[in-house]
């Protein structure tokens, strides 16, 4: 069971309180109905599924109930950092090469 730092509760909490919500930073188009079939496929179906650093969304479902973002290594399952929803993708990651 993972231990996840909730950026709103400002502490680490057990995974049982959280629900993963898929890849992060996939913006929904402001002009949804104008999207092409390809755009929609990219938006809704295509995922980067990286072996290594992933940017993902979690919800502190049974805690503060907020959605937030996390950076995690999918090989070790170690969290690099978490940050609030709406905050930009971090340019630099603490303690991660390249």
């Amino acid at each position, binding site marked *: *069971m*993972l*231990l996840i730092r909730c950026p709103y509760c400002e502490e680490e909490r*057990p995974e049982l309180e959280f*629900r993963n*919500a898929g890849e992060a930073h996939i913006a*929904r*188009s402001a*002009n*949804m*109905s104008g*999207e092409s*079939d390809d755009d*929609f496929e990219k938006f*809704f179906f295509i995922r980067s599924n990286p072996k290594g650093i992933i940017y993902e*969304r979690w*919800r502190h*479902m049974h805690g503060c*109930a*907020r*959605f937030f973002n996390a950076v995690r290594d999918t090989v*070790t*399952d*170690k969290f690099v950092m978490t940050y609030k*929803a*709406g905050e930009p993708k971090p340019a630099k990651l603490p303690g991660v090469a390249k």
Partner: protein
Amino acid sequence: MSGAFRIPRAGRLSQAKTARFSFDGQSYTGIEGDTLASALLANGVHLVGRSFKYHRPRGFLSAGAEEPNALVQIVRDDARKTPNVRATVQELYDGLAANSQNRWPSLSFDVGAVNDLASPMFSAGFYYKTFMWPKAAWKSLYEPKIREAAGLGVSPDKPDPDHYSSRYAHCDVLVLGGGAAGIAAALAAAETGVRVILADEQAEFGGSLRFETGARIDGQDGFAWAQAAIARLGAMDNVRVLSRTTAFGYYAQNFVGLVERVGDHLKAPGHDLPRERLWQVRAKRVVLASGAIERHMVFANNDRPGIMLAGAARTFLNHYGVAVGRNVGVYTANDSAYAAAIDLKKAGVNIAAIVDLRDNPTGPVIDEARALGIEINFGRAVIRAGGKLRVSSMTVQPKNGGGERTISVDAILMSAGWTPSVHLFSQSRGKVAFNDETKRFVPGTYAQDCVSVGACNGTDGLSASVDEAYAAGAKAARDSGAKSAKGVKPKVDASESWSRGMLGAAPGAGPDTTVKAFVDFQNDVTAKDIRQAVHEGMRSIEHVKRFTTNGMATDQGKTSNMHGLAIAAETLGKPIPEVGLTTFRAPYTPVTFGAIVSHARGPLFDPTRKTATHPWAEAQGAVFEDVGQWKRAWYFPKAGEDMHAAVDRECVAVRTTAGLFDASTLGKIEVVGPDAAKFMELLYTNPWEKLEPGRCRYGIMLREDGFIYDDGVVGRLAPDRFHVTTTTGGAPRVMNHMEDYLQTEFPHLNVWLTSITEQWAVIAVQGPKSRDIIAPLVEGIDMSDEALPHMSVREGKICGVPTRLFRMSFTGERGFEVNVPADYGQAVWEALWAEGQKHGATAYGTESMHVLRAEKGYIIVGQDTDGTVTPNDAGLDWAVGKKKSDFVGIRGMARPDLVAKGRKQLVGLKTKDPKVVLEEGAQIVEDPKQAIPMKMIGHVTSSYWSQNCGRSIALALVAGGRDRMGDTLYVPMPNGVIEVEVTGMVFFDETGGRLNG
């Protein structure tokens, strides 16, 4: 007397406290504190089991958790039979009853042993190469036989009366292993005041101090020191000491699973005691002090009862006061076995000879053995053991060949050296490193905040281990936030020390031989099998393991892995590290299902959700159905009624007078804020801005991919306040779906969502008389059609309690849904029921609700739709706001194949024979005469007998259904084809006049 092999004054058990027990029906006497193993050995019993494949007689190899052979069934009573219990771990209690396993008719005469005679046929992986002809024989003959022969013990056959519990715990320093090193680490950490948990799998702490009689710490005997230290730790309130507790799994971020055996060692565990307790510990730092496991020597017939690890024999003697024989031989490749010989000799047991593979080893233990007059043979090997049900001799030969000499013995103690227990370290995803000098894998690269100390770290010698452990414990405490330590490091005055040893097959069991020299005892894997696997192209150690099943038995290769690896490496001509080690998988030792499940059994398997009126329905004799976690009243049978009769009556009553229905389980969400309408516009297909406060609308929610996700009636209570209802099953996921969009896609909107599902009990009153029933109880709401038209909502009082009164209908009749605060639910229901009785109203359940809505063609999301249905497919285009530029699903539902012709559309079906009721899920075809596989064009989603229509009715998803109105289609059933006509979805009151009737 507690056994002929009990040595007076030896061991630590009090001879006074005897305990009776039985094995295979024969009763014996042991001593409290014994394990089943030590008690049996005290009585001279070595033969306790049969091996997996060859059914060879087996005794005790070890005195601990690594035991591969001595597995028995413990029987407390009819419902408490536990298979595959290690006799070396099971503590004795008065009245314990154990049976041997995997033998028939008896342990000493086992028919299955013919396998041993035929063993040349049963080589590694033989079953992959045969049993293929004739083909049919596999299922009818070969496989059943193989299965009967396989398996060890017998599964329990009754529900388990015992209970299990669980506990989450957090600490700064978790110490796993309670030998000298673990205790030293725990002391160092505990003295700083941080939270410490110390766990050990044994009943008593001390680890190898249990047999290392040479050890002295802080001026006292090692084992005594350990007990004193544990007492000290136990008295500190920042420390939790757990004995009989095995750390079985090391998971991500220092999360460790442990199982504490609470009741199995007790004669009569109290009712309140769990049998086992699961500990799930999150630790800031973990100290691994799991020790080392002795390896056996790999030589011919090394599995005969009476042949065991030297350390085990020492434990039986020094801790339990039991001699494993009267005339004992020793076969070793390192020093440690000498200590066993010395201890036994001093206890008056004859040591027939020590056979040492090494050429000219020197050292204090060797001198001492010699001084005691024990015969020592250097540079020699035991090439064969004699005896069958019990070892009777050992045949010795110079290791490079030469004359044989057979020495009669009744036990052989062996030691090929010690393997560090890196299991938990490896589970923590740490990488082991091979030490070429000592020929062992030790912790290399760490992946988590843990540290290994003592023997499991490859540290030799008590003194070095304690120093290392104490320092590590102190550092772990510092790293987890401790200020200062104020303790004193334990001082080791005397210790035994040994290392080295050998890996792989001993002389006499080499490649040129065909002898049965066992590597994995339980799975009957010999050195020969491993070589064969390599010859057959298995180059990866994982392939060798899987092909031979080496290390896959219940002991998970604790004694066999390294030998197997060495033999494979030798055969491959590769260095050991290049061949690699198989991965260590959790659990460290087998874990009881019940302990893992702990509380989640019976009523606590899953919450059972009941509504406020549940007791009333129960009293009325309602039959309930499971809907998600909810129990819902399904129908209310009267005396002598079956489900059909009850449902027919309920349905007719609703349309002639009125019915009461508990709709409380429907999800309810209060959407509040100035942007509430804007938000609703985005989450539902319908338009909401113009919906007047006090009015309701049926809403459809899509997923982004355009498929129907949920639906429900939504009432606008105020410009900034909506009362949203969802399906029963959909409530939680709809709430999550809405929160997701609100928080991440539309955070600019000023609106909040609150689940009020359980705040309000909902009583649906439906039927021509519904208003007459409700009106007398309502205050402050004008119930006239003008003031309260269909699809409107008012707030007021009923029976003096607040209500949100909806005028709405899921039956097609005039109808209301009365929302009242949940705690008033049943009382208000009873009041309405009393009123209802004046009009002949009935209570109806979910089945009638389904029939009534189907008569009107109202869909049930999840039954008539299934996650692949668009609003258009369901004939709900009217509910999609045509002028809207955006809502969730607007783009998805416009994809080519979602607007293509020929999609399955929801339609009505009427069977040509009105009496025939279709089966839900039945498939529909155009041409019933076509051959299988048939082209299916749709399926029946809902189907009922409608008493109100006087015929059966059905809804179905049919390809291009709306263009098939009036067409005849066919439903092929096993017992004949059913003819159906495609119709509209409304079967009753097409004009809808009854909504105000």
